[in-house]
């Protein structure tokens, strides 16, 4: 486990998501990256029905990189890292925290490795219709644990195949620059992006 940066990659008008994914993948392959399987990160949301925690949300996320773990993130930012059986506890809690129907969002696609880097190109799909929402690129630099120590290197690498859409660390990553990076931080970055995608698509349907 190293340091991970998750960035959104814009899809220009007139192009399909798949076309852009293909472009990114062929650039990586030209750089010498090798395919190393599929990945996915998914998120279900539960909303409180209890008076003692009104409108509270629990986001339950899974990352194929940590297959035995699930991450429960509250809207307060608290992230509980738990065994996979926590999923079943959420079912027990369904009278208090029912699922928000049609709110499932996930990013999945191809995983690549290239030297010390792991790159994942994910297509984000949302809702019951599994409609395409955008592209998230995840880059992990394995030998380092502190984001501040390797940010410039990661930025340079990412700009190499993504252009200038990565300029500064995200607000979340900025708060973690000089502390040890953990898998929960990757989940928080995905969640930030997922929230933005959901907001955008709900704004469109209204």
């Amino acid at each position, binding site marked *: 486990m190293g340091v991970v940066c998750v960035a959104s990659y814009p899809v220009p008008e007139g192009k399909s998501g798949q076309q852009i994914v293909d472009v990114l993948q062929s650039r990586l392959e030209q750089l010498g990256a090798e395919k190393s399987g599929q990945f996915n990160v998914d998120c279900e949301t539960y909303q409180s029905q209890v008076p003692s*925690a009104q409108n*509270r949300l629990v986001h339950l996320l899974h990352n194929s990189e940590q297959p035995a773990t699930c991450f429960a993130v509250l809207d307060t930012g608290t992230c509980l890292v738990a065994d996979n059986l926590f999923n079943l506890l959420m079912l027990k809690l369904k009278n208090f925290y029912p699922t928000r129907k049609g709110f499932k969002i996930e990013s999945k696609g191809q995983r690549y490795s290239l030297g010390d880097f792991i790159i994942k190109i994910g297509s984000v799909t949302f809702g019951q219709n599994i409609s395409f929402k955008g592209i998230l690129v995840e880059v992990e630099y394995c030998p380092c644990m502190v984001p501040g120590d390797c940010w410039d290197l990661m930025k340079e690498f990412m700009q190499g195949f993504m252009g200038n859409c990565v300029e500064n660390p995200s607000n979340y990553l900025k708060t973690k620059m000089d502390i040890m990076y953990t898998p929960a931080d990757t989940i928080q970055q995905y969640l930030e992006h997922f929230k933005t995608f959901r907001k955008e698509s709900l704004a469109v349907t209204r």
Partner: protein
Amino acid sequence: MESMLAAMNKKIVPLQEYFLQGSVLDASRDILLHRLRGICDNIGGIEKFQDHEMVYTIGTNANNVLQLRARRALDDPEAPWLLRYVGEPDFGDRSKHTLVRSSIDVGTSDNLVQFLTEMGFRLDHEFVVSGHFFRKGRMKITVSKIYRLLQPGDTDKVEALSKSYLVELGVVTVSGQDQVQEEMKNFAEHLKPLVHLEKTDLRKLQQMGT
């Protein structure tokens, strides 16, 4: 989530606890420990534990309350926290040798208390439990004493609840493994007359208490 449900349907998730309970007076504890050391598997090294358990509830309506237990090891601060759901014990009929309850055990990070509180759970009660544990095949045996906390949250100042030790024999496994009850009954026979592990009808105990 789908894979978890699939695993549940295939009955490979350990969700059921078969258990028996009994108690032994303080004065006889060492003889029982001696017997257990003799007949249980040799796990080498530490066999002691000291845990702090906090019981949280959510919901106001009496029929619609869910209880979860948060446990941490006081003697091993590095160990993960344990979040546990335990269902109502099922007494079953005479042909069944043990009590059965559903059980979900989840290891978690150390911010569990903050997480539960923010979710709207309230602390119902807490206690410290300390004692010895043993293993025999897939069975777990604990001999432990329960202490109440003199001040909320302060695990250093505790007072024993009784002059005896709680003895529990349990197996957490997938559902429908009724043959394990026979194994447990035979094991309990080996501990007689030091301790009688029985399936106790907890509802009757509660009625006696009120």
